[in-house]
């Protein structure tokens, strides 16, 4: 009799196990264009299509508010009034300006500074058919305009100002992150427990996968033209944001000029890094913090440490991969090119 119970248990277990892999939960997926990039959503649960549309509406609203690539919106308003006192702004813009300030303070503006806009505009990297290095004189003239402390924020009255004429703010380094947090809020508000959004490479994961396992997020190989990955991290309820020298750049005489401008020198970053990936709860802060890219490996890692609640992956130009202690045992090298070395202990 015992034997039969044993057999029946095995039989039942096998059927259940096999059945489990058949009955997978379906997700709703959508694709759209906003923020100058592609937005992918994957939502598990009821009303997913409607929720994804609400998310897109929100993203486009934030884009209109924070863009400097089209007329109108808050940031243009702030820039047009540079040196002319306070202007009334949307509380959302104020909130982004505040987070930008917090992240800038961590490096005292060495890594991340939203007032680098005049130089971003001068270099215009990735926006023109005939890229060129601007004259050194022109760069030298603009560098003194860069100072995030000149963005004064009056939170109580929802207004802000830029201290000096000619100064400009560009939220390109943080707006995508903010939009990611906004979308996650929309998911939560609608009762979604499990979703993932990818805003042009900025990943925000809500909860875990429906089966309770962590999401697998691929980290792109910074030198792969076909978008291959170098590794995978498992995350639950986290944002994963990368800054690198490969998203937008031009090459001239064998030198790579990437789209991220060093706020202190006024030149494209050349820090010995190809990419920095930040993993933390806030996607806005992850976006800002990923500009640790500007500082190079050692100082960049220090910056992440100072922030305290983030993990990070640094990839150097000599193709070595470094991770923060909290990612050891989580980051998995998946490098088809066999060119990268994962340095587990420094």
């Amino acid at each position, binding site marked *: 009799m015992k*034997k*039969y119970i044993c*057999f029946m248990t*095995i*039989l039942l277990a*096998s*059927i259940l196990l*096999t*059945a489990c*892999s*058949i009955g997978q939960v379906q997700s709703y997926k959508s*694709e*759209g*264009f906003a923020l*100058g*990039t*592609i937005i*992918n959503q*994957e939502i598990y649960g009821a009303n997913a299509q409607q929720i994804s549309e609400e998310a897109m509406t929100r993203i486009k609203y934030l884009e209109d508010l924070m863009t400097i690539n089209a007329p109108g919106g808050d940031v243009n308003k702030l820039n047009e009034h540079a040196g002319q006192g306070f202007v009334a702004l949307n509380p959302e813009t104020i909130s982004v300006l505040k987070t930008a300030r917090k992240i800038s303070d961590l490096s005292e503006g060495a890594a991340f500074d939203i007032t680098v806009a005049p130089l971003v505009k001068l270099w215009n990297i*990735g926006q023109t*058919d005939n890229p060129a290095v601007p004259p050194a004189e022109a760069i030298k003239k603009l560098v003194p305009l860069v100072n995030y402390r000149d963005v004064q924020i009056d939170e109580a009255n929802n207004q802000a100002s830029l201290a000096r004429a000619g100064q400009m703010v560009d939220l390109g380094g943080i707006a995508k992150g903010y939009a990611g947090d906004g979308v996650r809020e929309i998911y939560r508000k609608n009762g979604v427990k499990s979703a*993932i959004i*990818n805003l*042009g*490479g*900025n*990943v925000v*994961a809500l909860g875990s*996968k429906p089966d309770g396992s962590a*999401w*697998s*997020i*691929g*980290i*792109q190989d910074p030198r792969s*033209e*076909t*978008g291959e*990955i170098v590794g*995978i991290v498992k995350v639950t309820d986290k944002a*994963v*944001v*990368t800054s*690198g020298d490969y*998203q937008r750049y031009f090459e001239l005489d064998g030198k790579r000029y990437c789209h991220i401008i060093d706020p202190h020198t006024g030149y494209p970053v050349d820090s010995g890094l190809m990419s920095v*990936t930040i993993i933390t709860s806030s996607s806005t802060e992850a976006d800002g913090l990923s500009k640790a890219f500007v500082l190079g490996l050692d100082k960049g890692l220090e910056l992440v440490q100072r922030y305290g609640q983030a993990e990070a992956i640094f990839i150097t130009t000599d193709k070595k991969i470094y991770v923060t202690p909290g990612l050891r045992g989580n980051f998995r090298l*998946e490098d088809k090119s066999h060119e990268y070395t994962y340095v587990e202990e420094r």
Partner: protein
Amino acid sequence: MNIRMLKKGDLILFLGVGLIIVLLLLWNNLSTASGNHLIAEVRKDGELVKKIDLDKVSEPEHIYFEEGIHQTILVEKGRIRFLESDCRDKICVQAGWLTKAGDKAVCMPAKTIIKINGESQQTDSIAF
């Protein structure tokens, strides 16, 4: 368990259980395999332009976009790619052939996406 204690009926039960497990596994594999045709989608500005079963393509086929940014997409058996594009960076063309489920190539300026439906087995999303 002592083998000598097994009776004929036990063996039949053994084989029966084994057979059921094998059948279930086979059925499971087949049911996923049947949905395993490589289906490619071409989308322009979010709208589906064409859906192609790549396993059923016999002759190479070109898809042309003449409005705005000129583009040519080439479809062959089991694969699809951007062949030419008038966009600036040509990231879409550099992406090369898409050959497996989850592969995707995007032309941002033209808002054209080609992709092969299905899940990437490896990752849920890619940070870049």
